[in-house]
């Protein structure tokens, strides 16, 4: 989230009951290029802050209804979307008062009547700190993305599966919604590496992921590299029947696709093992492990029966008290 404008200015919330001081604050800060919203007491400032995030708050100390100290505490106790730099304006300048102000959550203080150049300098300090926070957040987000991304194919990695698949399953069970998993494995991938080299193999992996990503719903379905040439595709709100249609479409398009590497055409096929459910209630047998194992079992059968095919099972309670998977579809090519 970038809350500063293109010139690095941040919106500032001013709480000041003295109209003259408020005017000077507004004018000084607007001249510096900031967006300023000013109110006449801490209560109004906090009400506004709850509706809209302000990364900088300049507040007077003594105000009716809610003073600056109470405002600092309220802001610090509020779950804000980012760090709020609070500067308290005060004519109180004894050490005890300053300590009270800082202990209540203020980051800095300016004595009244303030001098505009001093205020501008303080705001610049505060902008440096907020900019540092922004760049740290951005770096953290980049690290987070790297930690869940497969570097070669840019699909998600095993870590993401471990983190997110249980959540998908829990959500589907809680709301009694459908969910399917697909394991897609490139047939005879070793031959691709052996025949055309590892760079060609890498290129095939990348393009298979592109094909998968192009076939699934953005922002809902997702794919992750499960193993070397094996990909897991997670399809929330999709039962095994729907997953079979998608798998068959993918299988067909990949089998007809020519992967071109250094002017050589490479043909590959993929096998698909599917597991899932249309709607279930909570049961200990439905887990990431059980769903992946089931998909893997059908993928293994595909391999045994000649590859380039789709096999699917679904989780069904039937006669047993426990969920068991049952063969739903087996398309033989």
């Amino acid at each position, binding site marked *: 989230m970038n809350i500063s404008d293109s010139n690095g200015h941040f919106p500032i919330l001013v709480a000041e009951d003295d109209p*003259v*001081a408020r*005017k*000077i604050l507004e*004018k000084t800060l607007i001249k510096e290029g900031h967006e300023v919203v000013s109110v006449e007491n801490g209560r109004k400032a906090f009400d506004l802050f709850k509706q809209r995030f302000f990364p900088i708050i300049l507040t007077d100390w*003594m105000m009716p209804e809610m003073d600056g100290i109470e405002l600092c505490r309220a802001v610090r106790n509020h779950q804000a979307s980012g760090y709020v730099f609070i500067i308290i304006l005060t004519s109180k300048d004894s050490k005890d008062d300053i300590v009270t102000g800082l202990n209540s959550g203020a980051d800095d203080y300016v004595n*009244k*009547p303030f001098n*505009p150049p001093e205020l501008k300098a303080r705001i610049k300090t505060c902008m440096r700190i907020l900019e540092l926070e922004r760049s740290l957040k951005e770096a953290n987000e980049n690290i987070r993305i790297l930690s869940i991304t497969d570097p070669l194919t840019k699909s998600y990695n095993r870590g993401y599966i471990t983190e997110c698949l249980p959540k998908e399953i829990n959500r589907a069970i809680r709301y009694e919604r459908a969910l399917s998993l697909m394991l897609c494995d490139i047939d005879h991938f070793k031959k691709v590496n052996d025949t055309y080299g590892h760079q060609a193999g890498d290129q095939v992996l990348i393009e298979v992921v592109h094909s998968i990503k192009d076939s699934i719903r953005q922002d809902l379905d997702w794919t992750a590299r499960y193993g070397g040439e094996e990909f897991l595709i997670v399809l929330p709100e999709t039962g095994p029947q729907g997953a079979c249609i998608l798998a068959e479409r993918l299988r067909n398009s990949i089998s007809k696709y020519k992967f071109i590497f250094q002017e050589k055409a490479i043909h590959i096929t993929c096998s698909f093992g599917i597991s899932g459910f249309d709607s279930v209630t909570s049961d200990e047998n439905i887990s990431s492990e059980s769903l992946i194992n089931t998909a893997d079992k059908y993928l293994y059968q595909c391999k045994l029966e000649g590859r380039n095919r789709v096999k699917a099972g679904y989780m069904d309670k039937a006669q047993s008290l426990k969920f068991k998977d049952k063969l739903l579809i087996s398309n033989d090519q």
Partner: protein
Amino acid sequence: MNNLAEPIDMKEVMEILDGDKELLIECFDELLNSMPQTLAEIQSAIEQGNASSLDEAAHKLKGSLKYMAAGTAADVAYQLKTMGKEENLSLADNIFSTLCEECEKVQDFMERYKVGI
């Protein structure tokens, strides 16, 4: 108009405003607009014996006067603020009269300044 005997110390106020004359006029207008209302609030607080309202209103006026380098008037407002804070309003009437006189001088000075520019 830099005479220290004047109700507003122009040298000081221009330092506070970093030499911004446009802002000075806006502040004068703001104070001219808000001062009668704030004085009315102070008077009402004294009449009702409401110490905390006196503290708040006198504090606000003192702040504005300080920014405008109206030292004498600000000091008188501060006396009233202290009375409110200490909940001792026995001399508030007299001090309020002095405040009104000082504020009138400030008001007059600001109006004269605006005409003179």
